[in-house]
């Protein structure tokens, strides 16, 4: 079994934290993983993405081929669309619907959402609003991970939940609890 995931967002939105949690869960269960990250100049408010590959077999390439990704997990709707060329025909897109506008020529929002919703498998939610309503303003990315949990398959939701505890352990029990709550919010929002 394999799962090829593209994580997308804007520098500073926390996609690498999502990758760290999935990575922790994979390492603990002996699932092979390769995860290419973006460091350096583009982290300054530019588009960032990470290729995350999980497999029970040996993984060779650090990069996912076009048309081969099973899942796009994005903190931002336009950034989700940026990588549709990498998605295979039955691939899923899990994304925030909240646009991050730090450029003057951001596309028309309605057209953008229409294009996203035209894809066969999507889960779209205003995760930042949900985070604020639930007094979890820093955990929008973990809500998104919860939404994606159902599609990750190669790792169970429970495994991811456990890894949230491992990854946030150094920040104290309260932070772990907040993030697990955020995860459950996302998990329960996707049917």
């Amino acid at each position, binding site marked *: 079994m394999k799962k090829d995931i593209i994580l997308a967002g804007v520098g500073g939105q926390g996609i690498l934290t999502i990758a760290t949690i999935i*990575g922790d869960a994979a390492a603990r269960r002996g699932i092979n993983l390769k995860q290419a990250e973006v460091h350096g100049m583009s982290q300054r408010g530019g588009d960032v993405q990470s290729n995350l590959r999980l497999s029970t077999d040996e993984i060779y390439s650090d990069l996912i081929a076009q048309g081969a990704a099973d899942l796009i997990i994005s903190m931002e709707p336009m950034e989700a669309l940026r990588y549709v060329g990498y998605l295979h025909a039955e691939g899923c897109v899990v994304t925030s619907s909240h646009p991050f506008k730090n450029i003057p020529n951001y596309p028309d929002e309605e057209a953008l959402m229409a294009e996203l919703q035209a894809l066969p498998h999507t889960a779209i939610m205003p995760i930042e609003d949900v985070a604020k309503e639930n007094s979890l303003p820093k955990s929008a990315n973990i809500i998104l991970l919860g939404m994606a949990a159902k599609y990750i398959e190669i790792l169970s939701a429970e495994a991811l939940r456990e890894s949230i505890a491992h990854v946030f352990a150094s920040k104290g029990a309260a932070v772990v609890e907040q993030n697990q709550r955020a995860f459950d919010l996302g998990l329960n929002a996707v049917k």
Partner: protein
Amino acid sequence: MIQKRLLLGDEAIALGAIHAGISGVYAYPGTPSTEITEFIQLNAPEVRSRWCTNEKTAMEAALGMSYAGKRALVCMKHVGMNVAADAFVNSAITGINGGLVVLAADDPSMHSSQNEQDSRFYGKFAMIPILEPSSQQEAYDMMPYAYSLSEQMRLPVLMRVVTRLAHSRAGVATTTPLAQNGLNPDSERTHWVLLPGNARRQYASLVEKQTAILQSAEASAYNRRCGNGGAKLGIIACGIAYNYVMECNAMQAGIPVLKVSQYPIPAEQIKALAAECDSLLVAEDGQPVVEEQVRSLVGGNYPVLGRLTGDLPRMGELTPDNVGKALGHTSAPAFAAAENVVPRPPALCQGCGHRDVYDALNKVAAEYKDARIFGDIGCYTLGALPPFRAIDSCVDMGASITMAKGAADAGLHPAIAVIGDSTFTHSGMTGLLDAVNDNANITIIISDNLTTAMTGGQDSAGTNKFEAICLGLGVEPEHVRVVVPLKKNMEEITAIIREEIEYKGVSVIIPRRECIQTLNRKLRQKRAQE
């Protein structure tokens, strides 16, 4: 089950070096190499690991540690090799005492760089062994091997990686660490004093070592043949190109693959593969270094395919897509590129002091018809993009000052240089001395944010020393001006820039305010402690 550690390629290299018993790491930050030194700083207090002023000082200090008998690592991004080149090439002439590994992290596709030069050329130029791991595990495993190879050949070893290995994470199994070497300074002065008489002998010795270096590559476990011959096409897969070839199911298609991770190229293995196949494809990330050598090895009419023939793209990194295409795979993506997507370039952070510097500079520069602003390398290079569009050049570390000087020599006025604090100590100071000695009519802005910000906030070598450095190099005290780049000071800053442009000589303006990223990190840490 032994749980593997999830490590970036850079971290695997760092841990491999620690476990190989290094006593020191010497480096200047540069994407994609920075995390190697950071990992050692964080995890190996017994290893000397403070950042160096530039790649040349790093290379020389590492050679000094090797001279004293201990194992040393020096790390840099590919363009850093240009800065270190004098010391690097001559370290092959002196040879080494304690093992010495030079790690060059190349950046094909220029994700964070101004060119995609291939460091393997430098290794060949210096005539030393080169290692190029294909995976994080191999990067880790290769470090102890590299050090023993270095000590066996009495030569530095170059390890070359690319961004996709450096910044990609995978599970790595570790082995028992080796102890550090004891202090054992070399006493053979004829090796180290490169007067022409000694240098000729040392060069002859280096030439003589080439046979052993080649034999080592021919016999290396890192160069291995996968699959049988008799096929139409054979593939030579160098470094991480091997991964893309395997991803494209070359083996299942019955295509023999020669995996190459140690250089010089294993000539006998390549000739054998060529003899069994009708043509060879050379897959290598970076420039066609091996492709050119294979062409001359197999001779005139034998078809060698690769970047030079257009079977692979001439520039940019390899991907599973372009390697697949070279192997004749045709795949149409399920979805066409989206319509409602526009580029999102990086930008200076909100609240960054460089923003105020460019606001002030743009205001004053607009008052002069011929004003030119020579930029440099760092976060502030982003001043080239909207909304600022403030700089006219960015070439190499330190070039802002010296290019401004040359342009001023030609009669351009005002010639303004913008350089960051870390870049100034890296390679700007010597240019400033030239400018002072020639009384060049230039205005230099040292935009000091108290850190090496672009690469993530490493210590900057000149912090708290800039006024003293400028005065020491001979800038007139009344023309070394310090300002705080904040909106509320805009009037004062623009007035000072005007005054210094009007001064006929070298002036230095130092806008100083802490990097907003570093400041926020410190505040977060403080809050966490409370």
